[in-house]
């Protein structure tokens, strides 16, 4: 059953879910429908939640979603977990923390395996966000894989990026160095009941050091939460609203939209050229033969690629 455009626009969950599957599998019919839906996107507010494993991202997503539901907003959630590079299998467990929202009419939760794609998201997470957007979700929350490093992809997909950390991560400064300082619009110190003041202080100092800012630039707030009890979630929502207002007022929102388009197009360009290249007659064999030569040190990778493309 190919879902109809109208069903997806009406927020029919079965239609949305099926379209997501088709898009994730690169099914041409699904991709056709996605093209048509695109003009209906661009309305939802997209929020990213990222951070190392075990900091409570899923629980926080659940609480934030709940808070938005109380305001009458419809909420879509995309939760990305790692796929095993060896078997292609994945255990997607983010839903466990959110099951209480499962039966809420105004909530749609989708899990995705990253299927070998790096950057903290899955290859087609941008498209799943688009589907939720087109289906009339007011808020879309994207939860990244929890590696805590170089998950820069999420920045180009969301409007507001929240980086979640916890106290007691050992060498806190090390965590902060790993490229996550630059991607946070909001920093959340979760499990704050376990003594967050030191982390907050260090984080503040690092942020002031690391990021060059204009006078009217956004200064990332640091919010202390205890997701399990819901403490601090209201402040977090306020910070999110504040950032949303800021990017609207400063013109950043337009820029962000262009960044997301670039992310999606970058990916597609890469895929298209790669696919076109590999489709050339005998290319797969030549490619493999060249790899063997490189392995034997008969040539080097750059020379090999130049020869294949030349």
């Amino acid at each position: 059953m190919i879902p109809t455009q109208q069903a997806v626009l009406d927020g029919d969950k079965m239609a949305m879910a099926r379209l997501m599957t088709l898009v994730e599998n690169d099914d041409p019919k699904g991709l056709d429908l996605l093209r048509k839906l695109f003009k209906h996107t661009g309305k939802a507010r997209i929020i990213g939640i990222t951070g190392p494993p075990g900091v409570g991202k899923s629980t926080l997503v659940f609480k934030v979603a709940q808070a938005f539901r109380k305001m009458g907003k419809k909420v879509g959630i995309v939760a990305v977990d790692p796929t095993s590079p060896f078997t292609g299998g994945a255990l997607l467990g983010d839903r466990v923390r959110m099951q209480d929202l499962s039966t809420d009419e105004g909530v749609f939760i989708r899990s995705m395996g990253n299927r070998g794609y790096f950057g903290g998201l899955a290859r087609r997470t941008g498209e799943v966000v688009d589907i939720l957007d087109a289906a009339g979700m007011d808020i879309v929350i994207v939860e990244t894989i929890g590696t805590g490093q170089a998950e820069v992809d999420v920045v180009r997909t969301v409007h507001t990026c929240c980086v979640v950390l916890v106290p007691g991560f050992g060498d806190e400064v090390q965590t902060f160095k790993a490229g996550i300082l630059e991607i946070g619009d909001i920093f959340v110190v979760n499990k704050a009941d376990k003594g967050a003041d030191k982390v907050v202080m260090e984080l503040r100092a690092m942020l002031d050091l690391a990021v060059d800012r204009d006078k009217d630039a956004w200064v990332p707030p640091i919010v202390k939460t205890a997701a399990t009890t819901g403490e601090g979630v209201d402040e977090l929502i306020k910070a999110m609203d504040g950032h949303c207002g800021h990017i609207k007022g400063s013109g950043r929102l337009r820029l962000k939209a262009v960044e997301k388009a670039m992310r999606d197009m970058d990916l597609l360009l890469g895929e298209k050229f790669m696919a076109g290249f590999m489709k050339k007659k005998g290319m797969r064999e030549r490619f493999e033969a060249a790899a063997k030569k490189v392995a034997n040190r008969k040539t080097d990778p750059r020379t090999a690629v130049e020869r294949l493309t030349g």
Partner: protein
Amino acid sequence: MVARGLRDAGFEVIYSGLRQTPEQIVEAAIQEDVDVIGLSVLSGAHLTLFEKIMGLLKKKKVKDVLVTGGGIIPNEDKEMLRKWGVGEVFGPGTPLEDIVKYIRKNVRRDLT
């Protein structure tokens, strides 16, 4: 255990947690657009649970999803489950390969 084994066999497994209501299970299955629902029932309430789930799937017009499961289920109950359209149910100690093989053979979803 089964979830991990299926992952290692190359499946994407959505683990929904313990003690889910039939409504939650069916809703998760819809939103995740799954091929298979696997229920682990050890509470003895398997008949009620499977009946409710099969009923909800029908009500929501979810077709072609293979419903299977595991637990300690008496033979006469298995007969009943089969009548409702439930697939094989596996007893404790079933080798994982059997479950994988069964699922591979019986997933019959035509996505488009």
